[in-house]
């Protein structure tokens, strides 16, 4: 979506809601989450990574906004990373996920945030992409940054400091 040349100095590519992006190091990817889930997928050897900002768990067959739903967004994200890997095996891909918070304590059985997390976990599992770390749930938003050079995901909580995954 917003490929960065490897010769450029480190830049942070911002991923809007319901979109995804892939970059190669030294570029980083960043997104801001509430009930949405951020799905970071990367290949540490190739130093290539991608980040999807998933709004809802299930596309139910809709194809016009693939970045909006966990099932279509993760497929598209992984396809774009594989294209960047130029035939290198997908088995080296790993994931870290964050978000899925719920600002209001709802009375319904499961919040959209929780549904987003579950859907993401299930899709990654079906694709044999291991989730190395997660920072999900709770009541607050998160700023999520992926550095594909190190595989480090930094989470910033409003007023609460940083967490490294």
């Amino acid at each position, binding site marked *: 979506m917003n490929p960065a040349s490897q010769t450029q100095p480190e830049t942070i590519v911002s991923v*809007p*809601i*319901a*979109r995804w992006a892939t970059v190669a190091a030294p570029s980083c990817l960043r997104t*801001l*989450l*509430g*009930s*949405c889930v951020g799905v970071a997928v990367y290949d540490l050897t190739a130093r290539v990574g991608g980040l999807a900002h998933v*709004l*809802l768990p299930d596309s139910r067959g809709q194809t016009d*906004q693939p970045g*909006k739903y966990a099932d279509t967004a993760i497929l598209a994200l992984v396809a774009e990373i594989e294209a960047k890997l130029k035939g290198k095996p997908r088995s080296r891909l790993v994931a870290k996920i964050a978000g899925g*918070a*719920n*600002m*209001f304590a709802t009375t319904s059985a499961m919040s*959209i945030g929780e549904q987003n997390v579950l859907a993401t976990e299930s899709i990654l599992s079906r694709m044999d992409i291991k989730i190395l770390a997660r920072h999900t749930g709770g*009541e*607050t*938003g*998160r*700023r999520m940054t992926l550095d594909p050079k190190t595989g480090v995901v930094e989470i910033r909580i*409003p*007023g609460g400091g940083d967490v490294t995954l």
Partner: protein
Amino acid sequence: MSEHSPDPSTQRLHLIFDRGAENASQAFSRWLGHNVSLQIGEVDRVGLAEAVDAMGPGETLVAACAMEVFGPLDGQLLLIFEDQAGLSLVDLLMRMPLGTSRSWGELEQSAARETANIVGCAYLNALAHHLPGAVGSLVPGPPLFRHEFVGSLLEFALQDQAVNSDELLLIRTRFRATSDLLEWSLVFVPSGASVVKLSQILSPRDLG
């Protein structure tokens, strides 16, 4: 103002939400004991990414009181302010010099939540009164006080509408008190079902 050329139902929406904003600013003035003026009232239909950035850069850390709205026009109501404007609001309420309150203790948060309750109720009172037909009561839940990224806050609020639509409706009102730059914004984000209901009750055939 909205970039889109207003159709009759959007104009009608504007009129009704302007009444809400007017009533809210009057209640705000009485509550603070200072004149609170209405700066802008906007009814926006925007895309997802635009909606999340509607209050400025998403990473901006703000203080906010968030209320769920129950009733025939449900959704989320957010009173959003920068920390300093929020603490100045507490100073005005406590009749203390501006700059006295410096942190969000229990009393300060309580003052902010009650302000949101009063301003939010005044807004909803006017909507309930002016919406065509007997819409019934519009009741806010107890306000939650949060420090949050403004983009995350809007994302939480817009989630329900985004389930069925990529064009989102949000209604923004900005207030300013005294001659200082003390600004607070009230944002109403109707639920997905409420957006459908609003377009039905404000359809052109009901005009007049």
